[in-house]
């Protein structure tokens, strides 16, 4: 069995988001919340304690009317591979209780809610603010908890959570494949909830290592970039934009720096 399993190809799941297609409609955010049992509270306008695994940022080019321009940027967990793909993403190695982990088999950064004890060091470490703390007990009003999905654990107060690339969908897809006697799953069998929902088709998800997957080619676009590449976090979420100012907004540049 050992031998058999080692034959499985190493995957690197990632996303390519076309910012020129993204309309900022918010479907991905809600698809994520609905899929992953994300709680809500009465006031969600305080964005700094509002749990949105996938958050859409509104970027502006800073120019005055009528040259102003906006761009929406959906930001899931970037599932950083860290320097040299060793899985030392900013958050993983700092967790004192081994509650977050990087899988070399999938490239996914996991968060184990029941292990996390809420020190929030990983939040401090993440430059993308992709990690969220449960400041409040999750409360569903009046029987609304009926819609909760059993595929994703409901998180308790006092712990950190974040986007998992809908890992449970991978688990379920593999379950089905194994049941049918297959070892590998097809690209369309494992897609994240946001990818599935996006009306604009702006999000592509798949194995960045697999030439058969759409993301493999998309990420090579000359308009592709990642957020904060200079920090060497090595994210697995790529963005595409034809607009120079948008691409430049992906990283910090010194004021006197030449492009």
């Amino acid at each position: 069995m050992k031998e058999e399993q080692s034959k499985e190809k190493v995957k690197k799941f990632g996303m390519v988001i076309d910012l020129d297609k993204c309309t900022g409609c918010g479907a991905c955010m809600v698809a994520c919340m609905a899929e992953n049992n994300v709680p809500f509270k009465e006031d969600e306008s305080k964005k700094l304690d509002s749990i949105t695994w996938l958050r859409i940022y509104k970027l502006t080019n800073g120019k005055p009317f009528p040259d102003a321009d906006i761009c929406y940027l959906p930001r899931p967990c970037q599932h950083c591979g860290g320097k040299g793909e060793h899985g030392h993403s900013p958050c993983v190695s700092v967790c004192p209780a081994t509650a977050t982990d990087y899988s070399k088999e999938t490239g996914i950064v996991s968060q184990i809610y029941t292990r996390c004890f809420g020190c929030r060091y990983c939040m401090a470490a993440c430059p993308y603010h992709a990690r969220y703390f449960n400041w409040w007990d999750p409360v569903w009003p009046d029987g609304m908890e009926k819609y909760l999905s059993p595929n994703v654990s409901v998180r308790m107060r006092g712990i950190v959570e974040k986007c998992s690339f809908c890992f449970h969908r991978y688990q379920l897809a593999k379950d089905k494949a194994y049941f049918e006697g297959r070892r590998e799953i097809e690209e369309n069998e494992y897609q994240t909830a946001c990818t599935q929902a996006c009306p604009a088709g702006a999000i592509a998800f798949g194995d960045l290592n697999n030439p058969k997957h759409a993301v493999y080619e998309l990420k090579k676009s000359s308009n592709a970039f990642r957020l904060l590449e200079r920090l060497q976090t090595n994210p697995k979420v790529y963005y595409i934009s034809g607009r120079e100012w948008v691409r430049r907004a992906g990283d910090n540049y010194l004021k006197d720096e030449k492009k």
Partner: protein
Amino acid sequence: MDSALIPRGVKRCPTWQFALWIGAAGAVLLWGVFAMLLCWFKGLNQTNMNDAYGFALWIWADLAVIALGGGAFFTGFLRYIVGKDELKNIINYAVLIGFICYSSALLILAIDIGQPLRGWFIFWHANVHSMLTEVAFCLTCYFGVLTIEYVPLILENRQIDKIPFFHRLGHNMHEIMAVFAATGAFLSFFHQGSLGGVSGVLFGRPFGYREGIFIWPWTFFLYTWSAAACGPCFTILITKITEKITGKKLVKQNVIELLAKISGWMIGTYIIAKIIDTWYWAKVTAPAAGFNLMDFYSNNPFYGIWILVLEIVICGVVPAMILISEKGRKNPAALMTAIILAVLGACVNRWVMVLQVMAVPVLTFENWVMYYPSWQEVATTILPVAYGVILISLSYRYLPIFPQEQELNPEA
């Protein structure tokens, strides 16, 4: 009423006065305990922390008290390892202050985590690569050492000392105290450093991140050094405050000056290293991430470049120069100024390395986030102060903390 407990040969205030004093501190303590219970039962929504400020006042308080409590390990190190004998006259107090600082730090950590009942996971499921794991282990162990160092003092209480077992236990512990002190110093060097590592390893946070050797960023060494430098100043400061309140001279000036002198040299060397570190960071580390130095100090209402000047020049260079010069040490006003500045310097350093790291936006489309603590956070941060006051008061009243007290106050 409690005269049987008070060490012989020293004078203490009347019981009612003492009770009043303890009562006042106790009231503050209860306020803190109330806030603490709120945090435990209702959760961290009681604070003003948020997803941008995962670390805030509490972590600063933790880092600051541990830095300041560093007087205990460094004085112990000087006394037992280096062999500065005069320091035996202040080591008791240094240990007590250290004990208070470390127990406070642990208490604050226990409030600060979102799931206190799972706090022990940090030990059981330890991830040895995390600076916080190292902090937790060394902190707890060193707290154990401080307890071991504090216990013999308690055993010296007149009534307890009467019991032969405790008398002998205290005696035995004294005998091998150097071993404990050495172990404590070893642990301290590491956990002070790990605290520095906490922000130094955050390569996603250009304000805090530093290069280093192997797994240790430069802040690792700077923190140990600064704790060793500023900790003793805190010991002196508290001693001076105690003398002021009790109206008695408790430690001879030569002891204070010796500690101040060593501290001065430590601060001096530390601040040189800190300046080099800052320069390298501003010129090499941060620009590699796309940041100019002033990006970290502008476009926000609070974190101006003043804070860097305050930390390095006013609270670093100035106290170092005063304490290194004999004239400065001999002048009581200058000495006090230097000590206060040094303590403030450590606190400011810890503040920026915790709070400013969180405040600086890293994504270009995010903004500076400012933060002010909730009353629950303030109360739980003041709680240890009240607890410290009470413990010092009790210890001072009932334990022979200051060996030179009788000699300095013969009329009693």
